[in-house]
């Protein structure tokens, strides 16, 4: 999928662990892990809002559109 989740990068920049993020945004650590690995079909606006609030960032810092080779951007 050309949507890449950069949550692990943001977590590293903020020096925050997945467990802490999970606790602060109110989802399970397992779901944070799935989100980090991009193994989810979507993200709710309220989850995205909570992540941006806790990590003090923009949605674009978390999600990135990266076209696959040969695909027109």
């Amino acid at each position: 999928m050309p949507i890449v989740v950069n949550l692990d990068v943001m977590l590293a920049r903020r020096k925050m662990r997945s467990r802490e993020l999970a606790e602060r945004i109110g989802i399970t650590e397992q779901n944070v892990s799935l989100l980090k690995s991009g193994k989810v079909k979507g993200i709710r606006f309220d989850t995205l809002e909570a992540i941006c609030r806790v990590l003090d960032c923009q949605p674009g810092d978390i999600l990135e559109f990266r076209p696959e080779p040969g695909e027109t951007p």
Partner: protein
Amino acid sequence: MIDVTSRPSVDALRARIGWLCQTLRFAAPAYALWVFVLLALHWSNPTDVTRAYSHWLKADLVEVPAVQRAGGFLVHMIPWGLTVLACWNLWRLFSGFLTGRVFTLDAALTLRRLALAGFAAVVVDMAARPLLSILVSIHMPPGGRHIGFFFQPNDMLNLMFLGGLFALAQVFKVAAEIAEDNAAIV
């Protein structure tokens, strides 16, 4: 793998229908056992068999010999076996509900198997009736032998119910797929 069994809505549903699931779980083997005992008692009683089939065939049958009654019992074991299969799936379905496996593909498939086994049991039971009527009257002299076809309103009700259950299982399968998709959105 996303866990769809530990959501608050599923927990609430489990709390609401838990007692019903437990009851149905234990009712399933009890029903299968009850039917078996009734069949065994019926076919082991020559007077009962002769009276019942004389009534259904509207004929004056002479006491049905033991070998024929044993045959009748064996024929009845085929729909009974399918009933056991349906009860087993009922047990599995409600055991799954109790552990929170409600809107899952596995639950939908178990419901479908339950409907199919139940439907087959009713159809085979109906198809066995002419065979049973021959079995219980074959010892009669020519002219006294019968072949009977019975179809009762209850048969139609059972078929309608089980057909509806099958359709519901298909709907349930689609719902399970949607639930799985939703569970993949965090």
